[in-house]
């Protein structure tokens, strides 16, 4: 296919004789964000360095526009990078740093033309760093630096943008801004982006395709929908303590033992209660939850026991009895649920049961 910007063929990357990731065949198309995820040390950065021609592949080939072995000068016009190395350029303003992206286009002495200046200004406008133009680069915050480095990469007018963990060190606002910016760039300029991310929830939202690296190979490739399902993430990161759910995120390890507190949950209101009990190290039971309730994944990750009911069915008598039996053995009951209706009518009865037994405690007290 000729519209592939980048394609690798049986690529093996690593240092010296040490293979880190092997057998890689993947491609990046114009207007597409491909995200690399995987545990620390899985080889994401090594792969990105190899793609950016900063590290020779141990075997295999990286094709750009179906061509291999492109010269440094040509490559500089096709690909730009934002890396994790911190730079500390002496006495450089942000504009100087951004202008350096025009390097492949300037003459022998690197003097900027009017057109170059225009491109620099556009790139700074796009990444919202115009107001930092005259500021010294070394005085910027991490978020500002990252945006300036992105502006530098943008004014290099690449077809492929390689970003190594661009969101580390940034706060949530700047993470979102940066990724939205990358998304916009991808669509407006139809560039291809290959990026490594540690924030799974962001990877899920921003990527068109995800490459999962595990055990020295590409373990899985697919759309976010295909990757973020079931227990795959848990497997990918080999999470043995705690858990990860694609929607509700990471949870710490459940407190084991006989339940001391029964939580009547439902509709997501129970989530903070479950997490608090986990922090306090109190084993608890909860129910009766519908299997499609938004707090169900959290409950099953944290509770010692979860009473469940099938989705969209009213809580049955059998489940109610089971829950009542567990509740009986618990020291206290917390009711996190605030709304009762046809489907969870039995939960209201559980609440009454707790009240008469004098076990009900207020949600906030604990």
């Amino acid at each position: 296919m000729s519209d592939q910007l980048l394609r690798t063929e049986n690529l093996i990357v690593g240092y010296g004789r040490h293979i880190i990731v092997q057998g890689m065949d993947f491609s990046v198309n114009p207007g597409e964000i491909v995200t690399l995820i995987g545990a620390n040390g899985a080889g994401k950065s090594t792969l990105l360095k190899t793609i950016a021609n900063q590290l020779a592949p141990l075997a295999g080939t990286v094709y750009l526009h179906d061509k291999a072995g492109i010269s440094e000068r040509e490559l500089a016009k096709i690909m730009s990078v934002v890396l994790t190395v911190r730079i500390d350029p002496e006495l450089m303003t942000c504009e100087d740093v951004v202008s350096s992206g025009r390097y492949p286009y300037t003459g022998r002495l690197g003097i900027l033309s009017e057109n170059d200046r225009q491109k620099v200004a556009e790139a700074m406008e796009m990444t919202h760093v115009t107001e930092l133009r005259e500021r010294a680069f070394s005085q910027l915050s991490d978020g500002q630096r990252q945006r300036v480095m992105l502006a530098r990469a943008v004014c290099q007018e690449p077809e492929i943008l390689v970003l190594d963990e661009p969101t580390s060190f940034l706060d949530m606002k700047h993470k979102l801004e940066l990724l939205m910016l990358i998304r916009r760039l991808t669509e407006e300029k139809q560039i291809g982006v290959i990026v490594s991310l540690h924030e799974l929830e962001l990877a899920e939202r921003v990527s068109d395709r995800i490459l999962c690296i595990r055990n020295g190979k590409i373990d899985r490739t697919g759309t976010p929908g295909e990757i973020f399902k079931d227990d795959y993430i848990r497997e990918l990161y080999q999470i043995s303590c705690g858990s990860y759910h694609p929607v509700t995120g990471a949870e710490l390890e459940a407190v084991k033992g006989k339940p001391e507190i029964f939580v009547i949950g439902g509709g997501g209101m129970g989530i903070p209660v479950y997490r608090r009990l986990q922090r306090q190290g109190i084993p608890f039971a909860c129910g009766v939850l519908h299997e499609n309730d938004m707090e169900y994944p959290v409950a099953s990750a944290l509770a010692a026991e979860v009473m469940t009911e099938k989705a969209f069915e009213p809580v049955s008598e059998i489940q109610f009895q089971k829950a009542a039996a567990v509740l009986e053995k618990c020291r206290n009951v917390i009711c996190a649920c605030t709304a009762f209706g046809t489907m969870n009518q039995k939960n209201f009865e559980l609440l009454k049961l707790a009240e008469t037994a004098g076990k009900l405690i207020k949600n906030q007290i604990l």
Partner: protein
Amino acid sequence: MKFNRKSRYIAGFLLLILCVVLFFCLNLLTGSSQMTLSKMLEVLTGNSSDTTAQNILLRIRLPRLSAAFLLGGALSVSGFLLQCFFGNPIAGPFVLGISSGAKLAVALVMVTALQIGISVSSWMMVLASFLGAMLSMGWILLISRKVRSMSLLIVSGVMLGYICSAVTELIVAFADDANIVNLHNWSMGSFSGTDWQDVRLMTSIILLCLLLTFLMSKPLNAYQLGEAYAENMGVNLKKFRITIILLSSILSACVTAFAGPVSFVGVAVPHLMKTLFGTAKPIIIIPASFLGGGVFCLGCDLLARNLFAPTELSISTVTAVFGAPVVIWIMLHRSMKNYE
């Protein structure tokens, strides 16, 4: 802002040129034999019949000050290159031991030549000096691969410098010959005794290197962002590294061959120029360092000759007095910045 920057550059260069002219005149006028301005102008325009004045000005002072200017400039440019290369603001040919390595090589060649009774040409001196500089450079490169710490690199450079100086002293002490007095003077660093032939040779070497260095200002600028980004911008790192090492070694070797080791100019002047121009852009700082280094050495030589006349100080004594505080200032300034 754009306009301000440009006018700052222009003003900076005008100031430097003015200083060059001023110190040229001062160096011509002062010395053990008094000279008046009108007499000097007469000699320079070729209207003087005073042969003593002609000899003093044209045979002694003019070549000497030309050497001071050219060699000072070469040292500063070499220092600037090393600073860019190692990403270290206090790197320089003297602190990294490159000058001392060159000194050792030259001393060896001179002593051997004296012993077997052949005279050493300037060319041979430059060559020996270059070889010595390259050996030291090789050592420093090895160290810089092993350690990432700036201060460790400098410490090992200074230590290398001491070792080379010690060996040089040893050679000088054991080579008993009348000519050793010259060798001793030279090993302390001095611009005295330069003749026109030397000046011609150093001019051709230095100006050629300066031109090549100037042509490297674009990749140097990219390199200031670090190797990874330089590579992404299309800089051929291998070629770049070799060129920078060769140029900085030739420049500092040339200085050592003609004037012996001259301390601190290579560190202090580029830094002063960066402060004066408010930028580290190689395209500005390379020519500025050359002019600035020239002025600095002219000024220092002026003091070396006149401060305790008729006794002459070694040039390193004077450059150290003015250069070392600048180095301390840089280090304090940087560590303060890190604490902020």
